[in-house]
C-alpha cells in the first residue's frame, strides 16, 4: 500500500494539553515521548513529562534521576519530569494507612495489615491514584502540556479501563460492604476518577499517540490498543511509526529482507493504518539518548536528522557466542523442569520460548509451551505448526471466567440470593483477574514435574507483580491455613521457582542500552526473590550479520559494547546469541532458523 504519513515533527501540530504515548515495549515510546515533551517546551510551553512505566528508562534518556516530584530537566527551559513508581506509590499508600496505628495496635496486627496491603491490587490502585491526580487534580498545576510516557500497552489499558470499572463500581455498589479492600481509603476521591475518565475522552484535551515499529507484532498490538481505547470512548488517536527504513542499498540481502518485512507488515495492517493520522520517524544508527539527539528528532527533517544522530564508528567485533541449539543440548538431558524466558516486552521472549521448545521437542523431550503474555503472541510465533509440543495459552479473560464459575459452583445450591449477589459483586473486583492468572501460572509450573514446561512470561512489570504476588500469597498461606485448604501447586510454587535444578530462568535482551540495563535490573529483582537466572540470551543481534547498508551496519557496531557488557558485567552463567535472521520467526522452519548460528 502507499503510506500517507507525515514526518514525526508534525505530530505536535495542535497538540492538546494531555498527550499519551503508548505501545509495545521496545518500540521507542519513551524516546518519542521525551522528544515530544522537549519540542513542546522549546516552543515556550511549560511542559511536564510523566513516566508511569514500571520499567521506565527515562532517567537514561534525559540524563536525570527522576523522582516522584517534578524536577527541572537540565539543559532545557520549561521542561519538567517525574516518575510514578508503582511500588513506591504502594509503599506510600501503605504507610498512610498503617502509620497512624503504630503504638495503638499490637505489632502482629500491624504486620498483618502491611502484608495485606503489599499485594498487586494495592500497587495498581496506588499508581492509578497518583496518575489521576495529573488529569483532573492538583498535580496538573499550571503546566501547558502534560506528556505521559505510559507503561506497556496491557498495563496502560488496565489503568484506563480500571478508572471506568471503578467509577461504575462506586455508582452501583449498594451493599455497603465493599470488596475493593485497598480502595477503601480512596473512595472519597471518586469524583476525581470520574473526571479523569472524562478528560481522556475529550479530543480537545487528550491525544493518544500509539507508537509502533513497522513490524507485524508491534502493529497488531497498536491496532488492539487503538480498538480497545476506541471502545472506551477515546477518539483522538494517532500512530507514530518509529524506525521507518528506507534502504540505501536495495540489493543488499539484509536490506532487502528488512524492507520486505516492513512492507508486508504495512500491507497486513493497511485498513488500520488508513484509520488514523500517521507520522513516521526514520530508523537511526543509534538510540536516542541525550538532549541534543532528542532535540534533533522533532526539529530536523528526516535527511538532516540521520546525520545529526552520531554514528558509532567503533571497529570492535562482537565476542563469539554459542547459539540456542547448544543451549537445547545442555538442557535436554534433564527431561523435565520449568524454563522461563524473561525480559522487557518486545525483546522476543515468546519467539525464544517457542524456538527453544521446538529444539527440546526435536531432541525427544516432552514439551509444553505456555504463555501468560496478555497480548498472546504465541499463536503468531507458531503459525499452524505445533512442532511436537503441547501448546497452551494462559488467557487472563478466560482464566477469570473459569475462576468465577468455579467459585460460584463451590457455593451451596440453596445459597440465599443476598449472599450470592454479594459474592458476585466481589468477583467483579479488579483483583479477581490477578488471582485467576496467578493460579493458572502455578498450575502450569507444576506440570514441569512430568516434562519440560517452557513459559514466556508477561512484560517485566507484570512478571514482577506475579512473583511478588507469589510471595505474599505464601505469607498468607501461613496465616490462613487454619481455615482454608490450598492446592499443592500454589504451595509449592515458590520453592519450585527457587530450585535451580527445576526452574531455569533465561533473561532475554536485545543488544541495546535500555533492554540490557532493564534485564540487569530484572536479574537483581529475581535475586532478591532468591531466584538465580540460568543464562542470558541476546536476541536479534545485527552485530553478527554482514550488511552493506550503512544504518544497519552502524546499528550492528553499536551493539558490540552492550554484548560485551552482558558477558563481562551481568551474566553469571553462559550467554547465548541469536543473530538477526532474514527468515521470519514464524512456524516450524522460521523458528528452526533461530537455532543455528547461520544467517
Amino acid at each position: 500500500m502507499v503510506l500517507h504519513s507525515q514526518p514525526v515533527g508534525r505530530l505536535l501540530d495542535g497538540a492538546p494539553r494531555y498527550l499519551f504515548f503508548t505501545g509495545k515495549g521496545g518500540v521507542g515510546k519513551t524516546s518519542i515521548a521525551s522528544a515530544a515533551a522537549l519540542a513542546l517546551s522549546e516552543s515556550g510551553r511549560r511542559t511536564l513529562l510523566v513516566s508511569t512505566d514500571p520499567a521506565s528508562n527515562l532517567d537514561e534518556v534525559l540524563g536525570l534521576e527522576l523522582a516522584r516530584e517534578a524536577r527541572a530537566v537540565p539543559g532545557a527551559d520549561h521542561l519538567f519530569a517525574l516518575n510514578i513508581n508503582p511500588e513506591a506509590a504502594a509503599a506510600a499508600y501503605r504507610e498512610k494507612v498503617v502509620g497512624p496505628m503504630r503504638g495503638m495496635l499490637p505489632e502482629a496486627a500491624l504486620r498483618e495489615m502491611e502484608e495485606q496491603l503489599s499485594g498487586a491490587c494495592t500497587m495498581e490502585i496506588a499508581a492509578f491514584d497518583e496518575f489521576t491526580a495529573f488529569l483532573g487534580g492538583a498535580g496538573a498545576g499550571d503546566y501547558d502540556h502534560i506528556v505521559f510516557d505510559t507503561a506497556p500497552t496491557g498495563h496502560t489499558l488496565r489503568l484506563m479501563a480500571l478508572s471506568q470499572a471503578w467509577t461504575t463500581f462506586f455508582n452501583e455498589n449498594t451493599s455497603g460492604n465493599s470488596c475493593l479492600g485497598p480502595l477503601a481509603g480512596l473512595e472519597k476521591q471518586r469524583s476525581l476518577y470520574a473526571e479523569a475518565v472524562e478528560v481522556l475522552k475529550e479530543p480537545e484535551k487528550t491525544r493518544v499517540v500509539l507508537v509502533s515499529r513497522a513490524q507485524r507484532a508491534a502493529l497488531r498490538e497498536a491496532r488492539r490498543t487503538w480498538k480497545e481505547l476506541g471502545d472506551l470512548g477515546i477518539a483522538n488517536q494517532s500512530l507514530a511509526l518509529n524506525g521507518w527504513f528506507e534502504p540505501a542499498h536495495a540489493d543488499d540481502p539484509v536490506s532487502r529482507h528488512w524492507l520486505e518485512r516492513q512492507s508486508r507488515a504495512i500491507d497486513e495492517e493497511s485498513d488500520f493504518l488508513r484509520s488514523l493520522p500517521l507520522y513516521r520517524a526514520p530508523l537511526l544508527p543509534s538510540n536516542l539518548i541525550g538532549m541534543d539527539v532528542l532535540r534533533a528528532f522533532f526539529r530536523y527533517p528526516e535527511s538532516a536528522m540521520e546525520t545529526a544522530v552520531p554514528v558509532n564508528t567503533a571497529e570492535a567485533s562482537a565476542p563469539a557466542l554459542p547459539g540456542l541449539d547448544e543451549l537445547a543440548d545442555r538442557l535436554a538431558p534433564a527431561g523435565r523442569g520449568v524454563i522461563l524466558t524473561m525480559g522487557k516486552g518486545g525483546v522476543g521472549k515468546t519467539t525464544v520460548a517457542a524456538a527453544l521448545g521446538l529444539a527440546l521437542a526435536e531432541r525427544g523431550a516432552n514439551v509444553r509451551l505456555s504463555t501468560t503474555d496478555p497480548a498472546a503472541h504465541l499463536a503468531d510465533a507458531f503459525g499452524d505448526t505445533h512442532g511436537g509440543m503441547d501448546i497452551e495459552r494462559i488467557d487472563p479473560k478466560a482464566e477469570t471466567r473459569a475462576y468465577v464459575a468455579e467459585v460460584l459452583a463451590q457455593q451451596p445450591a440453596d445459597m440465599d440470593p443476598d449472599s450470592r449477589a454479594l459474592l458476585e459483586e466481589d468477583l467483579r473486583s479488579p483483583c479477581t483477574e490477578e488471582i485467576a492468572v496467578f493460579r493458572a501460572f502455578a498450575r502450569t509450573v507444576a506440570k514441569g514435574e512430568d516434562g519440560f514446561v517452557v513459559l514466556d512470561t508477561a512484560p517485566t512489570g507484570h512478571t514482577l507483580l506475579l512473583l511478588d504476588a507469589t510471595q505474599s500469597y505464601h505469607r498468607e498461606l501461613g496465616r490462613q491455613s487454619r481455615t482454608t485448604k490450598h492446592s499443592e501447586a500454589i504451595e509449592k510454587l515458590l520453592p519450585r521457582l527457587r530450585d535451580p535444578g527445576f526452574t531455569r530462568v533465561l533473561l532475554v535482551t536485545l543488544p541495546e542500552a535500555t533492554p540490557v540495563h532493564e534485564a540487569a535490573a530484572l536479574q537483581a529483582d529475581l535475586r532478591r526473590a532468591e531466584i538465580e537466572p540460568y543464562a542470558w540470551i541476546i536476541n536479534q543481534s545485527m552485530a553478527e550479520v554482514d550488511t552493506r547498508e550503512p544504518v544497519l551496519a552502524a546499528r550492528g557496531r553499536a551493539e558490540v559494547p552492550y554484548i560485551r557488557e552482558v558477558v563481562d558485567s551481568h551474566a553469571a552463567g553462559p550467554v547465548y546469541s541469536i543473530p538477526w535472521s532474514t527468515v521470519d520467526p514464524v512456524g516450524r522452519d522460521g523458528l528452526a532458523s533461530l537455532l543455528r548460528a547461520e544467517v
Partner: protein
Amino acid sequence: MKSIQIYDPAMCCSTGVCGPDIDPVLPAVAGMLHQLAGHGVHVERYNLAQQPVAFARNPKVRAVLETGGTAALPMIFIDGELELQGRYPEQPERAAWMKRAREANTAGVAE
C-alpha cells in the same frame, strides 16, 4: 439481638475471593449479616487492613489482640458481648443467631 460487630482479620474483601482459595464460610457469613440487617439488627463490620482505627478504639478488641495476637481474629460481638473469637460461625450457630434476631424483631413489634 440489637447489634452485631465483626472484627475481621486483614482481608482484601469480605467474601474472601481475593485469596488463592476461597473459604466457603466467608460468603455465608456475609450473607447472614445482610439478612440480620434486614431484621433490624445493627451490623458493623471492620477489616483490619481497611479500618484499623475501629480495632484501636475498642478496648476489648485491643485487650484480646494483646494476649491472643491476630489468631484471635475474627472477633464477633453480639449486643456488646464477645460471642466468638478465632473463627467464623458454623451453620448451626448462624441459624441460632438468625432465630435470635427474628425473635427480637417480633418482640419489638409486639411491644
